[in-house]
């Protein structure tokens, strides 16, 4: 085990058991309240969607239409789509809320997203070289990613990724950077194309052809409105997700550190590899409770509405074990992420020998 880990194997095991106990308790409590909650969220989202589409017929209400459609798309992708596709509501037996059948209002096909997100990202969270969400194959987001002049464009790439986020997510599975580096062949992507093309076509058809056409003479305001709603959703989702993994203090791990990983160590890595956003209930809803990224990474398949309640227990456990619990208001986490995007654009300063001594002296500092 790496000396970067601040808990002894015994402590880690106990820590893991405490996490398991939380999980077990919540699973035994799942029932009507959780079902009613997600059904109400779904109803609200459909309501905003229909209202948004309808308001485009009323030209003065254009900003309201865009706002309504944006809210619908954000809730669809985050509190519903992301969470349902994690299997959080599979226990309900409702095909409309089942991880195998749910498809979201996003150009990325759900099955491809579930592979790169549920499997790759949630299994290998923050392991360099394995978790492709670190920088998404485009950005340099960690000091241990080797710098090269391409990364001078880091802020520009981040901005473009934000604006076109849903398209970036859709193309994520094609692993273009691995094709460039020769680790993946074009033929490996072939099975992905039909699903991808179909999903992109259906999404574009709906937002950029059919609904605008249905508003007749208002075609242009409607198409611009739909594009704006997609853009707002993209910016919001990008920022929430980047705040979950890239603020200062989030730890990354090497593959050697995580070989033969125990359950306790797995929880430890999830905890230190994530960051929360503190804020209001509305913020939690609109972020799909990914404002509780830490709890989400510890328990990805528990209904997200449970995270705020679990968070208090997790914090208490962290305090007892002397582990960092990375949380802060949105503006601070955003600032921290932005700073990192700029900082990582530049080549690393040469490491000073006394800094590594400090790190060795107190491993908690570097792990947190």
């Amino acid at each position, binding site marked *: 085990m790496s000396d970067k880990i601040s808990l002894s194997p015994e402590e880690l095991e106990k820590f893991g058991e405490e996490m*398991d106990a939380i*999980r*077990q308790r919540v*699973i035994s409590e*799942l*029932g*009507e309240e*959780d*079902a*009613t909650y997600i059904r109400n969220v*779904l*109803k609200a989202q*459909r309501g905003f969607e*229909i209202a948004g589409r309808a308001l485009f017929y009323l030209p003065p209400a254009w900003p309201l239409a865009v706002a309504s459609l944006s809210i619908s798309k954000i809730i669809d992708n985050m509190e519903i789509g992301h969470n349902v596709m*994690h*299997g959080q509501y*599979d*226990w*309900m*037996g*409702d095909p*409309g809320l*089942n*991880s*195998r059948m749910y*498809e*979201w*209002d996003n150009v990325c096909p759900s099955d491809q997203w*579930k*592979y790169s997100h*549920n*499997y790759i990202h*949630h*299994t290998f969270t923050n392991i360099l070289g394995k978790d492709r969400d670190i920088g998404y194959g485009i950005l340099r987001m960690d000091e241990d990613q080797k710098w090269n002049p391409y990364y001078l464009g880091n802020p520009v790439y981040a901005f473009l990724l934000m604006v076109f986020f849903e398209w970036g997510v859709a193309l994520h599975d094609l692993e273009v950077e691995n094709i460039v580096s020769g680790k993946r062949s074009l033929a490996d992507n072939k099975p992905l194309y039909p699903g991808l093309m179909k*999903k992109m076509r*259906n*999404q574009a*058809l*709906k937002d950029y052809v*059919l*609904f605008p056409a*249905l508003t007749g003479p208002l075609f242009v305001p409607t198409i611009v409105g739909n594009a704006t709603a997609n853009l707002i959703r993209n910016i919001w989702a990008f920022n929430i997700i980047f705040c979950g993994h890239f603020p200062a203090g989030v730890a990354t791990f090497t593959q050697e550190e995580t070989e033969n990983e125990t359950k306790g160590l*797995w929880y430890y890595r999830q905890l230190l590899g994530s960051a929360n956003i503190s804020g209001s209930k509305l913020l939690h809803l609109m972020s799909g409770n990914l404002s509780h990224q830490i709890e989400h990474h510890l328990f*990805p*398949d528990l209904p997200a509405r449970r995270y705020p309640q679990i968070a208090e227990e997790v914090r208490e456990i962290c305090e007892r074990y002397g582990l960092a619990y990375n949380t802060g208001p949105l503006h601070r986490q955003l600032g921290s992420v932005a700073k990192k995007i700029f900082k990582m654009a530049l080549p690393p300063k040469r490491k000073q020998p006394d800094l590594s001594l400090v790190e060795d002296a107190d491993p908690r500092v570097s792990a947190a």
Partner: protein
Amino acid sequence: MSIVQSILGSRALEALTSPHGVDRYLELVNPMWAAKEVRARIVEIHREVDVEGHPAVATITLQPTSTWQGHRAGQHVQLGVEINGARRTTRVFSVSSHEAGAGERFTITLRANPDGLVSKFLVEEAQPGQVVHLSQAQGEFTLPDTMPGHVVFISGGSGITPLMSMLRTLQRRTHRGRVTFIHYAQSPEHQIFAEELADAARTGYGVDIHLLHPELGDPALSPAWLERLVPGYRDVPTWACGPAPLIDAVQKAYDGSEELRVEFFKPPKVSGGSTEGEISFARSGLSAANSGTNLLEQAEAAGLAPEFGCRMGICFSCTSRKTEGTVTNVLTGETSSLPDEDIRICVSAPEGDCTVEL
């Protein structure tokens, strides 16, 4: 209805409601509106028999959505209910009413099985007005369009329901042939449809009804007894439905005759905590002795290559349908015996016999 239905089912509306589909919006307005899905409203719950100390039997009248394509006599339907407002549980029930067309009312008749979540809920707790989820009618255990002159129906217990549907259908079709109806019940007071059967025997054309109660000394089913009742019975088209022991006896008596069609209900297998048993991989037709490890490893050991991801129960890549058997979730220790259940095979260890769609 059909204009509305064709608009609701149109590709244009499908494209506009992509990716969720029309039904995901309609159900929020009125659960009885649907473009593709099938649901039904409970119209009436009628207790057929209610013997003290025994599970009650009820007939439930269902008004399906216009998406229901109708059923043929003898078919069954999968019916799902949300128990306690959360978990939808689905079970199969035979249709007991005569054959009917698209969107028409039909009935199911069921016993409130003491261990059965759904049947107990439907008989004891459900109220008229409640909406349930349906599949389309399924099953090949049906009457042919052109009826033979003489048919034999043999049933036991609640296995009478599909045959009752057939008898009712024949009476509506004013069938001119003979029907020999043999039914085994626990006791006369447990007999469902008793009055209607008596009516049919009295007024029906060529309907012979034999209600038997072996506990009271009535003859058990045997080739000799069948031969006396229906000479040359092996050459008479026969439909039999009931518990496995009765079907075993019928199959022996018919000795491979092609005139026999059967349908039977298997009670769920409970293993009582042992791992001994057989794992069947339904899609590939393979089977292997239960080794006690998780189903993913057992499938791989059998030479299959099921989809998987994290192998630790978090990513849901390996989710597969378990059709029969009991599995323990190795993460939570929770066991579950529901048929047709989606499980993560990487963290599910089977107990006893188990069938998975792999």
